[in-house]
């Protein structure tokens, strides 16, 4: 059985804030994890409550996003949605890593400077 993955967007990055995101990428994958459908949705307005409603309406199974408030995080978890939050990086990279089973909450995918 397939599932829907939602990535909050800011330009081509994962949106740094769940509650301020005004665009999302909705990807449907089949049981083997292959992408079968991709949709870009522009939201009428940004807001965590509206976004939670959209996630539940669309029966999204996984949310990949940046910072999310505790209240909304627990609400989605309570509704059995997997939330991979605090992800910093390009949306495409985050999605690929998730499908490879390689994305953890708090992942920073941008190249970093060494502090030597």
């Amino acid at each position, binding site marked *: 059985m397939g599932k829907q993955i939602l990535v909050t967007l800011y330009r081509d990055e994962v949106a740094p804030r769940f509650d301020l995101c005004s665009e999302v990428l909705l990807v449907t994958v089949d049981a083997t994890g292959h992408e079968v459908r991709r949709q870009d949705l522009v939201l009428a307005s940004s807001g965590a409550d509206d976004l939670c409603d959209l996630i539940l309406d669309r029966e999204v199974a996984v949310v990949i996003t940046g910072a999310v408030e505790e209240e909304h995080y627990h609400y989605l978890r309570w509704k059995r949605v997997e939330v991979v*939050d605090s992800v*910093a990086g390009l949306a495409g990279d985050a999605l690929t890593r998730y499908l490879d089973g390689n994305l953890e909450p708090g992942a920073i995918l941008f190249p*970093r400077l060494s502090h030597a």
Partner: protein
Amino acid sequence: MDQNTVASISGLDRADLLRVLGGLPFGVAVLDSERRALFLNPALEGLTGFSSAEVAGVPCRHVLRGSFCLHDCPCPPRGQACLAGGNRSREGTLINRNRRKIPVRLTSLPVTDRSGEFLCSLDVIEDLSALKDMETRLSVSASPGQIVGRCAVMEHLLRILPAVAQSDAPVLLTGESGTGKDLLAEALHRLSPRARESFVRVNATPMPEALLDAELFGQAEGPGGAPRPGKFQLAQNGTLFLSEIADMPLAQQGRLLRLLDERAVLPAGGDRPMQLNVRVVAATGRDPEDMVRQGLLREDLFHRLNAVRLHLPPLRERGEDVPFLLAHFLKLFAAKFRKPVTGFSDEAQQLLAAYDFPGNVRELRNLVEYAVMVCPKDTVRTEHLPLPLRFPPAAAPKASLAEASQPQPDQARKPARKKG
């Protein structure tokens, strides 16, 4: 003296800038021309939950995660606007690594060399949590709280409430159960000059007199020999609310009278009165004159408490308040339960309009809470209302004023009730 001389004499041209930033009590981020994080001082590390090392090179919007980052970034890359527009501060929120939303003020300062060439940007982040908490507390203490109402009687009550609150005179609140006496007492306290002191609620439930005495007036020698404060001492400089004056035994009523007259209490087992500065607000769901006649309330205490009397009308006498309160609580519970419920169907409205609400506002509130809880769509229909409301018992006995202490939607229908 020019700036170069000042920098040279003070040694600032050789200063270890990062160490200086590290000692500052507010958050500072050093950003490059592309607004990527280069350094976070310890205060900002604590605020965001990220360490300098793990976010070095990461765009600042993914580190600060501020409400101003996406649509009102203080400086686009290369700092042009920063240089042109100065260092305007903006308030907003950030969400830290622990998923906590924190109110902050951001000030972005471009750093240039002596020839005006952009070097880096300093983002100064101040935590405004304490300030916002204080603002919230002050705004709460200056409002009548959860009491709402639009009928003439309630409007009058809410209008005179601030003036009554300013006085130190005892207040007697009357009204049936569920009309909001507790909320009114709290509102009186919040609007009074005593708002920052304690609000102590006393429920003089039946218990052995000696125990009640100690509970209310304290003990000169408690367990372990130390004096144990009673409710009156705990309310020092604040407000003491007696939630049902009729429950208080006559002996304690006498002591309460002494407190009102002399502003002093004698702790149980003590021989020296203790001076107290307490405002007393008492409430009763019964008719106080009738209680005096029955000998349940001392007449002298009644006259003392009756200095200011505020009566909360039962809901059935509040006319237009019923639809207003239905809409008010519907909105409140729809938001609380995150449900898209927006109104009542015509049939549900008719049923509710015909209902008597013997449990008053408390019953109406519980009823709306239940309806919103079970309503799966946007309109509350009759089937979402509690069963006793839809199918009232054929010959339900009329509840007396005192018996109507619990919300019981199964009691009576509207027309026959008289004012209690």
